Every structure is written in structure tokens, then in C-alpha cells.
């Protein structure tokens, strides 16, 4: 009875992982470079689930005496244990998958220090990217290498991110933000550029937007950093890769 439940849960867990991989929502949780590990895990879970079908070594009471104390390794799983193991799938299916957004920012530091430290030091490859393809992380790495907000003035930018605001932002400004993820969403660090746009109040928090404009030297929270003077801000879908990867 318990063994078949275990087998079912393992196989369902494997299928759950496959469904997340196929729908692309797995990238809401982990860095793309660890995708293959999840594929292996999903296959492994299904294989282990199947193995219960062919198991020949059963309980240890066949030799006459009953070893009750061996409950944990081959024994029955309590209903609560089963429920607990199933909880990632239950939660994952009950609450629709969504990448981290503005709500997760409130618990993280939004200052120049955190913005620039989230970027890994090497940025050599980034500089060769065409300017219109540079993302928020690339621009911040550029800025960090010069550390002079004026140096990047006049650069044209095209950025995709979600809208973040708190009480430090003026009426006409918001932050176009992304999370940088090294490993999984647990280590997500926020990153963003302050955008000046007269129609900012029309934007909803957490809404994904595409911002085009030019960089100009500015100040935020008492620190010198480049700001984006937006020419246009249009709403857009959540990108396939909602997070940026530092390496």
C-alpha cells in the first residue's frame, strides 16, 4: 500500500518537473545552466518510481520475527509524511507559476551598493554586445567599470524589466528592474535602472515593460548613477528568461 503510494508520488514528481521544463516555467526557479540537472532528476525520479514495481526485497518480517523498530527505512510512511512530500507539487499546481517580481523587492536592499554588487566582476564579453541588446546587468557592469555616471551619458538603451517603486521615487519615475540569479530564485538579487518618464503614474507596479531612451547622469538616494530618460515605455510580456544570469 505504502510502496505503491511512494511509487506514484515519485512518478508524479518526475512528471511535474517535466511539465515545468516543457512549459518553460522551470526558468522561474533556477538558472538556465542547471536545467540538465532537473532533466536528469525527473528521469531518475520516474525510474526509481518504476523500481518499486520490480522490488523483490520486501519487509524484513519474512524470517519470523517482526522488527517494529525498523520503521523508518523500509516502513510505512505516515499520511502526514506523504502529504509533506507531495506539498511541492500541491503548492506548485495550486498557485500558478510566476517569476519573482516587485513584491520580492521589498525585502531586499535597493541601493547602488546592492545594485552594483549583484553584478559579477568580469564584464569583458559584455562590452562587445551591440548596444541595443545590452540588458540592465550589462549597463550596470559598464557603469561599474567607469564608475562615472557622465561617461555613459547619451547612450541609447532598450531595456526590458518590471516596474518597481517605493517612497523614494518621485511621481515621474520608477525603476525598470530584473533579478539576477546565480543558482536559483533563492539567491535572486535585484537590479535596476531608474527611469524618468512623465507618464509613470499610469504604470502598474510589477508590470513588465520595455523602455527605450537615453542614459543621463543623475542621482538616486544620494548616490551618483546613470538614469534613463525614457522616450517610450510600452507594456510587454514576461520574457522567456525572466532572470538575468551573471555568468
Amino acid at each position: 500500500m505504502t510502496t505503491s503510494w511512494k511509487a506514484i508520488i515519485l512518478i508524479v514528481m518526475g512528471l511535474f518537473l517535466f511539465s515545468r521544463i516543457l512549459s518553460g516555467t522551470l526558468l522561474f526557479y533556477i538558472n538556465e545552466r542547471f536545467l540538465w540537472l532537473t532533466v536528469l532528476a525527473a528521469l531518475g525520479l520516474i525510474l526509481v518510481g518504476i523500481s518499486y514495481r520490480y522490488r523483490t526485497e520486501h519487509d524484513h518480517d519474512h524470517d519470523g520475527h517482526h522488527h517494529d523498530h525498523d520503521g523508518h527505512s523500509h516502513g510505512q510512511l505516515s499520511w502526514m509524511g506523504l502529504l509533506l512530500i507531495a506539498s511541492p507539487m500541491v503548492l506548485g499546481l495550486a498557485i500558478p507559476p510566476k517569476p519573482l517580481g516587485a513584491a520580492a523587492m521589498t525585502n531586499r536592499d535597493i541601493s547602488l551598493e546592492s545594485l552594483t554588487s549583484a553584478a559579477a566582476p568580469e564584464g569583458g564579453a559584455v562590452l562587445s554586445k551591440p548596444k541595443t541588446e545590452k540588458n540592465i546587468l550589462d549597463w550596470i557592469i559598464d557603469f561599474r567599470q567607469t564608475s562615472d555616471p557622465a561617461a555613459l551619458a547619451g547612450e541609447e538603451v532598450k531595456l526590458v524589466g518590471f516596474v518597481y517603486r517605493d517612497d523614494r521615487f518621485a511621481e515621474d519615475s520608477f525603476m525598470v528592474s530584473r533579478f539576477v540569479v546565480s543558482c536559483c530564485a533563492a539567491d535572486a538579487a535585484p537590479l535596476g535602472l531608474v527611469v524618468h518618464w512623465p507618464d509613470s503614474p499610469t504604470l502598474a507596479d510589477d508590470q513588465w515593460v520595455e523602455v527605450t531612451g537615453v542614459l543621463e547622469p543623475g542621482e538616486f538616494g544620494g548616490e551618483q548613477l546613470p538614469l534613463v530618460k525614457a522616450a517610450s515605455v510600452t507594456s510587454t510580456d514576461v520574457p522567456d528568461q525572466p532572470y538575468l544570469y551573471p555568468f
Partner: protein
Amino acid sequence: MKYIESHSSSTEITPRPAVGFFRSKAALRLLLAIVILAALVIIRDNELVGSLGSRAQTFVTIFLSIFIEAVPFLLAGSIVSGLLEVYVNSETIYRFVPRHPLAAALVGGGMGLIFPVCECGVVPVTRRLYLKGLPISMGIAFMLAAPVINPVVLASTYAAFGWGPIFYSRIILSFLIASVIGFVFHFAKPEDVLRSDQLAAIDHHQCHPHEHTHDHPHESGLNRFWNALSIGGDDFFDMGRYLIIGSMLAAAMQTLVPQPVLLALGAGSATSILAMMTLAFVLSVCSTVDSFLALAFVNSFPPAAILAFLVFGPMVDIKSSLMFLGVFKRRVVLYLILLPFMATLMITVYLNLNMSW
């Protein structure tokens, strides 16, 4: 063996004792703690009812991300454990255990090079090795060191930091701290260290060693393989529940505790180290990738604090300490958190004050 039989027959008459963690009061208390944490999140934000949903969303995303990141490693560790059960017998293990306790602890510290498992996979493997008669000290040294002293993590640390003080101090410190703590446990009696059901299972193993390793000699290789896999599956369930509770706690902490509070401590020579160690404990990321994460902090924290993050995090974090509960007594789990904590803290504070990097 006689004792065990009489013991087990007596438990058959009396109601089943609440040996399992999930049948104990501790489980209820833990559940209560999670509920309270969740309630706090709600109360904290109740002026913004709209953000309540997105808070829950953030919690679920972080919880699933830790879980999904850890599953491959836990599964690998469980399967290794199953293979050990079927293909390796106690005599083989016994032959490899050095007689001198200090040597045993040191070998335990380096054993990760043979069993490349990280912090999620190491717990089921250690548990299985205990069943096969590994000394307590060697197992603890292995369990604490292996998440760092293994080829994959060495490679990722090298990739992130290159050949430098951080790279080799991480290896040396992890190895030394783990071996010394393992050696300390040489002086403890197994019945004071291991959970009672784990002890009973060891006794059981010793009563019927042949039942497991040469159970059905006529069985085909494929059958033994399926057995190994399904034993691995049992381990996955045993350890998975601790992993899940640990991931939930870590996700709750992350949705509750503001990181700026922690990172503001970045300046002081001791507080910066405490901050990074707390961060390592709370974030609970896998040791295979934590070097890349540590890179993000090199500008705001001194090298010794980064080192503390890289040494303490793999040994102990929320999810691994929850998993320890599946093998060790609760008091021992407390020691297994506090001893590495104190050792890492003292050494890195000393380095911070006396070294120029």
C-alpha cells in the same frame, strides 16, 4: 540480538512508540512555527491586502526553487545509498576504516573525493554508511566536509575565485573543522549520538548482515539493481521530508527577514562575518553553486567574511540541519550547528584581524 528481539516483541503489545519524528510533538511544534511565521507575514502586510497574494507567490517561488535545485542532488545521494546497501557489505567498509580515531576522522574528512555528494546527498549516504558500521566520528567528519571536499565543488570554487587565498583556505578550513568536530564525536557513545530508530536499524543490520548483501544470491543482476533503486527511493522519502520542511523555513525566512538589515552589518570585522554566516544559513543554497553567489558579495564584505560564508554554509544551513534530524538526536543536531558555527567564526575573525589579503 536477544535483547532486541525481546524489546521488539514488547513493543508489539504496547502501542507503537512515537519514534518517528513525524509522529512526535516536535513535528507539531515545527508545523506550528511555520504557521506562525506565515501568520506574521500576513499580519505584517495586512494594510496592503493586495500584496498578500504576491507575498504567498514569492514564498512559493522561492520554496520551489530551493526544492527543485536540491532534488537532483538528494536523489543522487539516495541512489548512491541504495547502491551501497545492495553492492557493498560491512566487511568492505570495515577494512577501509583506519584503526586510529584521529586517522579515521581525517579520512572521513577527505572521503568526499570518493563519494562526490553535496550537502543534500551526503546525509542519506552517511546514514547508510552508519548502517554498514562506519564509526560515528568518521561519518560526521565526512558529512561536514564532503559538501566542500569533492571534485565538483572544488571545480566551481576554482571557477569563481581562481587559485588564491579564498580557494585554498576554503578547502583547508572545511577539512580541518570537519575532521576536528568528527574527532570530538569519537568520545561520544553511539547511543547518545544517533536517533534510536537509527540505532535499532544498525542492530538489525548486525543481526542479519547476509539478508541485505547476499540476500538472494540466485537473483539476477537486474533484480538487485531494481532493489538498490527502490531502497534509494525509500531514502529519498526519509530525507525528502526534512528537505521540504527546511526549504519551507528558508523560503519563509527570506520572505520575512529583510536582507538590508543583514547586509548593513557588512562593515565590522566580526559583524560582517556573522552577517555572511547568517546569510549562508538562511539562503540554504547548494554548495556546488554557492561560490558564484559569494562573488556577488566580494565588493561589500571583507574576504574573511566571504570565506566564512563558503566554509559554514556547506556544513550547516536550514535545510541540511533539518535533514540531520533524520539521523541524529536533537541535542546532537544542535552541536552540529553550534560547533561549526563557533569554529568558523573564531578562525575567520582571527584571519580578519591578522591577515592582509
